[in-house]
């Protein structure tokens, strides 16, 4: 759980707060280039479904301002853009349906105006503490053709470089586990959200079913580091990953921590029997 004093967990090792931050930075620096490949291999592609579910839960409408923390390689950001884009398209289609008696000229002009605003003023800011992860994210964005409504900021979840009451939604997907002071990150999340804003956290959690838990452990400890070595040439980082999942607070404990930061209507949804959980809270 949380570290009381200077001694903390790095996976199953005991380190100081500063050592932990440094080690985690190095882990992500090392895995950045193979991050996406590894995610697909370890979860057999299921992480994509988890992230899709997060987006559906968020159900953003055009005009939403999203802050995606620890957003590294951009998975959440790109999904957000796709989502608001398709919502926007449907909006535009409905608008056109209502204007059946317009001239061709007027319809054409309305297309022009709306095409320039395909995201409907929605914006996502991707914030990550790790330069390498951001670099990979930017390259991906360029490669996939994402540019509008997207910004990349180097920043620390424990001390965000943003003003108070700025964002409609705050997400942190598979990132909060790597934050050294989770309480500070939650406080910062509260600070930068607008009143009425939503906090969403997607993270590995605890499996209560005993049989499933044994299988999950077996897979995690026996297979994942091997995958790390074979695919990424990096055993140690993936050993850290599976250990850090075990050290992370279970669902109820995380819920309490989120409530402590001031959020209301805090709830969680287990995915795949608790292998992953989505926690949600509102700033009122």
């Amino acid at each position, binding site marked *: 759980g949380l570290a009381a004093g200077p001694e903390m967990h790095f996976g*199953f090792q005991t380190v100081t707060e500063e050592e932990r931050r440094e080690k985690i930075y190095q882990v992500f620096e090392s895995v950045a280039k193979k991050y996406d490949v590894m995610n697909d291999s370890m979860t057999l592609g299921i992480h994509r479904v988890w992230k899709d579910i997060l987006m559906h839960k968020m159900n953003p409408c055009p005009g939403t301002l999203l802050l995606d923390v620890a957003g590294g390689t951009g998975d959440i950001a790109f999904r957000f853009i796709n989502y608001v884009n398709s919502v926007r398209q449907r909006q535009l289609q409905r608008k056109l349906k209502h204007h059946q008696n317009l001239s061709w000229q007027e319809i054409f002009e309305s297309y022009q105006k709306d095409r320039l605003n395909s995201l409907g003023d929605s914006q996502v800011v991707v914030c990550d503490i790790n330069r390498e992860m951001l670099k990979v994210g930017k390259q991906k964005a360029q490669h996939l053709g994402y540019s509008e409504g997207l910004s990349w900021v180097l920043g620390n979840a424990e001390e965000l470089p943003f003003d108070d009451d700025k964002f409609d939604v705050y997400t942190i997907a598979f990132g909060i586990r790597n934050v050294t002071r989770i309480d500070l990150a939650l406080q910062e999340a509260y600070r930068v959200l607008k009143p009425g804003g939503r906090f969403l956290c997607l993270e590995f959690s605890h499996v209560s079913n005993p049989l499933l838990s044994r299988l999950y452990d077996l897979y995690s400890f026996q297979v994942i580091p091997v995958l790390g070595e*074979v695919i990424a040439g990096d055993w140690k980082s993936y050993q850290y990953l599976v*250990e850090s999942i*075990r050290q992370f607070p279970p669902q109820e404990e995380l819920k309490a921590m989120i409530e402590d930061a001031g959020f209301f209507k805090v709830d969680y949804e287990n995915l795949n029997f608790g292998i992953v959980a989505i926690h949600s809270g509102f700033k009122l």
Partner: protein
Amino acid sequence: RGGEEEEEEEEGWHQLYPGHIRTSPLQKTLLAAGSAVMALYDPYRHDMVAVLGETTGCLALPNLRDKMKNHPEGYRILRERPRIRLSTLDMARLQELPDGSLGREYVRFLELNKVSPDTRMPPKFVDDEELAYVIQRYREVHDLMHTLLGMPTNMLGEVVVKWFEAVQTGLPMCVLGAAFGPVRLSTRKLQVLATELVPWAVRSGLNASCVLNVYYEQRWEQPVESLREELGIFPPP
């Protein structure tokens, strides 16, 4: 559950040597399979070839170590643990040795093929400190094998050296490399391989005494041909 794992994993931190990662039998099996597939899929993943060697060498390595122990020069190597690295080699001195000497030809080989002895992977998955040294020695001596056999570092040359090493060491990784390496060669090269090079490499490997029992660092002045004769390696075709 967390406590159990903690004990199990803390054991992993009792390293036998720097870089050592303790692995369960299941992990070693998965690693062996995974590294074999990856090495074939991406030949540039030299680390995978190394991992394959370590995870499959449980019979061959003790064998090699015993061969070394029972030979006076090999025994000295095991005791003194010499390392072949740019920092330990006196490149200037080696370059000034006469042509045809081991030292001069070794340096020539390194320059020509643009390789360095420092790129050899340190062992990670060998669960015995002495055996870890044996495999490390085998890796560091690999370039000298090229020199003794007169083979370049292209695909063809590497395969020939692998055949020689497979016969000499019995390491499954060498056997697999020797068997699957030729897959990526042209038919013309395969012909040369099959008719001339492999038979010669195999005969030499069988005839020669154990190449790990040679204290190369003390034989730089020795002419390559004389060393070949001493070991029992037949002249290259």
